[in-house]
């Protein structure tokens, strides 16, 4: 299991390499990137803040839950970025390897969906005329 939180650009190839496994016939990857608009406003950059110790602990727990749900999982890697990100930057990479492809799609989706619900990382969208902490208010 490879779990990382970093303030440096994510090396996607390195994350992919970390899930290489001779028993796997499938590697599935999700790459989350910074989009240039949100609810109709032009986004100029994002600032990610993390509660580091808890974020790493919770990412690890999500990966462990995935291993319980998909016991055939061979390798799991999650790397999340923090700090200031520009449009197009990679914010998160999830990669899994499994013997067959169907499980890799399902496990990868479960991991990214659950990370978005439980991991204490906060995204502030910066616009040309202000900024908003995403999801903070109804």
């Amino acid at each position: 299991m490879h779990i990382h939180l970093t303030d440096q650009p994510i090396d996607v190839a390195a994350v992919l390499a970390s899930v290489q496994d001779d028993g796997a016939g499938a590697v599935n990857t999700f790459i989350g990137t910074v989009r240039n608009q949100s609810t109709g406003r032009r986004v100029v950059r994002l600032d990610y803040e993390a509660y580091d110790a808890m974020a790493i602990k919770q990412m690890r727990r999500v990966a462990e839950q995935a291993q319980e749900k998909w016991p055939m999982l061979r390798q799991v890697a999650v790397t999340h970025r923090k700090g200031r990100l520009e449009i197009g930057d990679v914010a998160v990479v999830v990669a899994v390897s499994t013997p067959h492809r169907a499980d890799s799609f399902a496990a990868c989706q479960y991991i990214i969906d659950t990370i978005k619900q439980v991991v204490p990382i906060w995204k502030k969208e910066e616009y040309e005329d202000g900024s908003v902490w995403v999801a903070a208010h109804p």
Partner: protein
Amino acid sequence: MKLKIALFGIAKEIVGSSSLDLDTPDAQSVAGLITQLRTRYPALNELTSFAVAVNSDYAADDYQLQERDEVALIPPVSGG
């Protein structure tokens, strides 16, 4: 007892600091702490939700806080 509460994101902006030193009753539950914070910082009531973490895990409402606990306020997360 005295609790030191770590603050992040919108909660940090509402309180105006990245941590808060709070005097609480010696027998204070997570639910009681949430009520105390909502009263002191009414802007917290406008949030979609917020949780309390103790020692890097989400804490149940009935958990009894200890002075040595590492406590954090967790506003709605938005990673990914």
